[in-house]
């Protein structure tokens, strides 16, 4: 006769331990003891469904013969045992006497029951709350026995608790395996991987980070990861990270990090916000890869581009000077002589011929002057950047039929020639692009000196463009960027289709 009061206390104790404990083995034994008590049974076992979904794995047992326990380590769905049958039918199976049970007759399972001194057995499937099979809880008696429905009332509560425990075990195992897989992936990845918490501090770095920096894991935690960043890049990279973090935006940035051998290497770091399953913000995760070689190649290419641009500019200026100082001067003299000859001509025919020749030479002079100016604008040299920019705005406006508003403020009277040429060419390229492609009715140009820098902005409210595509296919933007890099300046472009374009060129004056 079962003591229901004691059994209820036992179930209560198991419930408490289920919540608080993480080690399962002793809990399974306690469940088996409770099952034996509730069912007045002499032996008991608990099994978990294997990942193949077709067999049961023995988790723990009480009072089996060791050989039987070994035999039942894995039980297939088609086996002659009650648990095998219960798994197949997904229903409780009760056998009051194994000697008179038809489906057991002659099976190895029947032999094992005998070896363990078992005559009666029941197996109850354990299912998740959503009905998914998870395992089996069985009790065994040494004498023929038929448990009552009343016996099963509390036992089924225990079975429910056992199912919860198995489910939790499976979930914990899945998480552990997932973490193990993640660790394996992150530790063998050829990039450094990091994670931060909601306080922006580092909570994880992978093996590649440890190998790269040669620093211990603890050194990365909190803000320690930033200690190896090059002093010149530290503030900028932290600001980029913090700004993205505060707005939960993805980010990408390049900075230099000290490697284990003391050499600074360029890293390209990409980070994205991460969230818990309930949607709560959990921090950031990101990866960084060594892009030093690529950076060096880019810089080499950029240097070559800058040199090419400068060489081209010098060559143009040289050609323009040749045309202006030599050819045009000689042509000017020729026109005056032709003019004098025409005036002195004795015949009307001779006078007319000389006047025509004079006009042709004048026209040729203008053409050559136009060519010379296109090669290298003399206005930049004679007028300075502000007046030259204003003149260029007038010229583009007149040629392209678009209104160009030019404003200037505190522009230094004298600028290094390289900077003037750079700003002039950027303005020229930007205005031509805007006039040709933006369909804007008005373009605003602002040239402003700021003490230690000079800034040129060109804004239109026209069609805008796809910056990525334009950078990939056009030399114009690349050439503008390279020109600015050559004078330590920076070009920023803000544009969106149908939202206009803002081009800003900023050059330091030192």
């Amino acid at each position: 006769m079962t003591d229901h009061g004691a059994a209820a206390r036992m179930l209560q104790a198991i419930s408490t331990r289920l919540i608080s404990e993480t080690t399962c083995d002793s809990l399974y034994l306690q469940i088996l003891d409770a099952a034996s008590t509730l069912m007045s049974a002499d032996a008991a076992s608990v099994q978990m469904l294997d990942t193949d979904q077709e067999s049961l794995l023995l988790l723990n047992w009480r009072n089996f013969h060791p050989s039987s326990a070994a035999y039942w380590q894995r039980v297939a769905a088609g086996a002659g045992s009650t648990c095998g049958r219960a798994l197949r039918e997904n229903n409780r199976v009760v056998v009051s006497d194994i000697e008179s049970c038809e489906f057991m007759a002659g099976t190895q399972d029947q032999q094992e029951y005998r070896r363990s001194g078992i005559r009666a057995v029941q197996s109850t499937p354990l299912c998740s709350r959503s009905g998914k099979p998870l395992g089996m809880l069985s009790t065994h008696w040494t004498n023929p026995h038929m448990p009552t429905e009343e016996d099963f009332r509390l036992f089924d509560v225990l079975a429910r608790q056992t199912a919860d425990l198995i489910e939790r075990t499976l979930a914990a195992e899945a998480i552990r395996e997932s973490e193990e897989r993640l660790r394996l992936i992150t530790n063998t990845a050829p990039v450094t991987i990091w994670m931060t918490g909601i306080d922006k501090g580092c909570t994880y770095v992978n093996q590649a980070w440890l190998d790269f920096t040669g620093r211990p894991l603890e050194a990365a935690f909190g803000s320690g990861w930033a200690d190896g960043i090059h002093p010149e890049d530290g503030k900028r990279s932290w600001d980029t990270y913090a700004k993205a973090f505060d707005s939960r935006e993805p980010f990408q940035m390049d900075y230099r990090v000290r490697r284990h051998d003391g050499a600074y290497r360029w890293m390209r770091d990409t980070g994205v916000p991460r969230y818990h399953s309930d949607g709560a913000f959990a921090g950031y995760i990101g990866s960084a890869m060594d892009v030093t070689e690529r950076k060096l190649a880019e810089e080499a290419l950029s240097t070559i581009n800058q040199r090419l641009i400068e060489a081209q500019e010098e060559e143009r200026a040289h050609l323009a000077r040749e045309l202006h100082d030599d050819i045009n001067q000689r042509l000017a003299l020729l026109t005056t002589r032709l003019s004098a000859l025409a005036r002195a001509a004795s015949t009307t025919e001779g006078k007319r011929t000389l006047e025509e020749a004079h006009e042709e030479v004048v026209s040729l002079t203008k053409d050559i002057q136009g060519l010379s100016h296109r090669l290298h604008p003399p206005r930049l040299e004679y007028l300075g950047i502000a007046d030259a920019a204003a003149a260029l705005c007038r010229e583009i406006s007149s040629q392209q039929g678009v209104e160009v508003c030019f404003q200037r403020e505190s522009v230094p009277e004298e600028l290094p020639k390289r900077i003037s040429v750079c700003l002039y060419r950027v303005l020229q390229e930007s205005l031509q692009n805007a006039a040709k492609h933006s369909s804007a009715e008005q373009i605003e140009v602002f040239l402003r000196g700021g003490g230690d820098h000079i800034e040129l902005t060109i804004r239109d409210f026209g069609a805008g463009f796809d910056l990525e595509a334009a950078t990939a296919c056009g030399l114009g933007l690349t050439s503008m960027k390279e020109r600015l890099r050559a004078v330590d300046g920076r070009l920023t472009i803000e544009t969106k289709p149908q939202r206009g374009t803002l081009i800003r060129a900023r050059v330091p004056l030192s």
Partner: protein
Amino acid sequence: MSHRVLLVDDYEPWRRFVASTLSASAHWQVAGETADGLDAIQKAKALRPDLILLDIGLPSLNGIVVARRIFEHDPGIRILFLSENSSWDIVEAALRTGAQGYVLKSDAERELLPAMESIVEGRQFVSSSVKPPSSKVASA
């Protein structure tokens, strides 16, 4: 009485042409010549000419800067730009220095002497071929 003229141009054949044009008239006397911008400033101070014929494209300092410097020192002096540059923005910048005239070299045979006469008489002169452009630009 003849007016004393300083010729500033880096193209020697052009200076010869101007000198020979002026020598045909008793009104004009070439007081000095130079091919260099900085030297032009020195000569303007030293010679105090009645009129300077000034090119724009010059070594060491361009003509527009030369004119500014000369006017800083002697606001009463008269300058006539003589250049083959017909861009309006350059003509405008040249005249903004305070110079009284601008003659295109290709028009010089016809316009140089009338321009010089006008200027010494206190009037301004700009070559007929030089025309301001029409545009929509607004400048502040």
